[in-house]
């Protein structure tokens, strides 16, 4: 466990050195990679540790993007806006989690999936606040050069990724992480021995939402334009799951590496076969699930990750 977490931090340190070797395009890819890794690591808290198949990632990503976008338009600086998205989504997810996490299995999956739909429709309809279907333009953060801007957002996203990774490492080593694993293995038994399952699950759901929302906020400031079908795209819910499955369920290192690998594959397919890119993604998903169900981690760390198989 310790060694894999150390490896995760080393991988992140290597990513931080990217601006030394790459140009603006590499920085853009690096920023996306960090964003994907944030989503995958966050999903891993509720999906990997607690074993709840959450499809709500897109809901909190869009929530964060819209909170930040609206606040930026109101003249609030970037950092407090993202902080507001962070705290707001933690509270929202905690409250929703206390209600939704009473459901299990398919029912929880569908409820979390429809959460995305509810928030998307709300953003679509609240035209005065969010611009509705026309989307929301977000003022440029700084007047500096393109390269400085790219560098700023890359390190912003990277810092957020580092914070997410530290959160995941701390959680998995703490009593909270232990409790979540108990819940995954047998929730009724965990309840019996006096573990407050509702509280634990709600905190896990909140933690899995707040970093995603902050990433969404940074994304909104980065791309300067968001609309409901973009940031509440259900693919933002599915991609982290695919990345985590690719890397190995329940392992932070696997989730981060899965995210990086996924981005590379996506970029290659997107650049070369734009017309069939979602079909290729589908083939990739199907092949992955049928041929390598325990992810890349299982190739070498098979004995290390015995836990992952029970998820």
């Amino acid at each position, binding site marked *: 466990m310790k060694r894999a977490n150390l490896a995760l931090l080393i991988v992140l340190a290597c990513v931080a050195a990217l601006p030394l070797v790459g140009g603006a395009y590499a920085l853009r890819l690096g920023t996306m990679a960090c964003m994907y890794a944030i989503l995958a690591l966050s999903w891993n808290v509720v999906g990997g540790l607690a074993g709840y198949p959450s499809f709500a990632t897109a809901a909190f990503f869009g929530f964060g993007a819209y909170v930040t976008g609206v606040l930026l338009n109101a003249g609030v600086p970037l950092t407090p806006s993202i902080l507001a998205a962070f705290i707001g989504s933690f509270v929202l997810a905690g409250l929703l989690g206390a*209600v939704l996490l009473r459901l299990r299995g398919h029912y929880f999956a569908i409820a979390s999936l429809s959460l995305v739909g509810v928030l998307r429709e709300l953003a679509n309809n609240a035209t005065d606040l969010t611009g509705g279907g026309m989307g929301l333009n977000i003022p440029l953060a700084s007047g500096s050069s393109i390269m400085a801007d790219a560098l700023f957002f890359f390190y912003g996203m990277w810092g957020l990724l580092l914070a997410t990774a530290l959160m995941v490492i701390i959680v998995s080593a703490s009593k909270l992480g232990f409790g979540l694993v108990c819940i995954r293995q047998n929730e009724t038994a965990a309840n019996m021995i006096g573990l407050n399952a509702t509280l634990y699950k709600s905190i896990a759901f909140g933690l899995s939402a707040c970093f995603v929302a902050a990433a969404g906020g940074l994304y909104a400031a980065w791309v300067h334009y968001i609309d409901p079908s973009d940031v509440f795209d259900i693919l933002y819910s599915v991609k982290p799951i695919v990345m985590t499955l690719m890397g190995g369920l329940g392992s932070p290192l696997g989730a981060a590496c899965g995210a990086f690998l996924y981005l590379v594959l996506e970029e290659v397919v997107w650049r070369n076969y734009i017309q069939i890119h979602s079909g290729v993604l589908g083939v990739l998903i199907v092949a992955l699930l049928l041929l390598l169900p325990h992810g890349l981690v299982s190739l070498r760390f098979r004995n290390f990750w015995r836990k992952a198989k029970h998820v």
Partner: protein
Amino acid sequence: MLAAQIIINALVLGCLYACIAIGFSLVWGVLNVINLIHGSIIVLGAYLAWGAYQSMAISPWYVLPVAVPVFFVFGYLLQRLLLNRVLHAPVLVTLTLTFGLDLILNNAMIYFFKADYRKLTLKPPMGSVSLFHVVVPVDRLIATVLALALTGLLYLLLRHSRIGRAIVAVRLDRDAAILMGVDVRSIYAIAFGIGAALAGCAGVLMALIFPISALTSSSYLDKAFVVCVLGGLGSVSGALAGGLLLALVEGIGSAAIGPAYATTLSFALLIVFLLFRPQGLLGRKGFE
């Protein structure tokens, strides 16, 4: 009169919703798989009807007898070759697998049929019937009657045929069904095939009414979700009740607070039902 028109519209739409959801409900109930490819199969059925009418002027209701075997074989093979391998994996795996399959089918349809919206326009148009100022288009009425007929057919199949009883037995208690000599693997494949056939037929009927595009598949899927949860999982009558309830809520909701909020309303209803009545309106453990 407006109220009567809204109610009638909702009843017509409700039968179509039931038809959309019924195959989805069967697969979910029997195989315990949320079949995310369902929406794309519906659209494929709609394209089949559209293609037959454009190229050979065959009316959609004559396409139905062709659609049943074609989509049955498609679903049967899909289950046998792919889904069977992960059937006992956790929820996450089956969901993600069907999502991947949906991406493939949807992309293939956009590639071959383009993303343009198509419309099947009957020539000459069939007009509408009106009774006490309540107007119903004839093509919509025919689609509703056929949807009800398909629903009834499934009910009879499950109730009175050997295969149907075996499907119900597997749904009730898989292990007991194995002990009674039911070949569960083949029942799973047949149930999935029936689900696909119903989706294809629903698509053929939808082609009469709604515009056709691969982009609409997710909205069909959303309806199927909501109908299943509202009505109760895996029963024919439940799907019918759920379809009617959803259509009524949407119709009355859009008249009262505006059509923009109809989808929000149906999702909110879905979450309320999941929390307080997860077995749905007519949910029981058995299938019929």
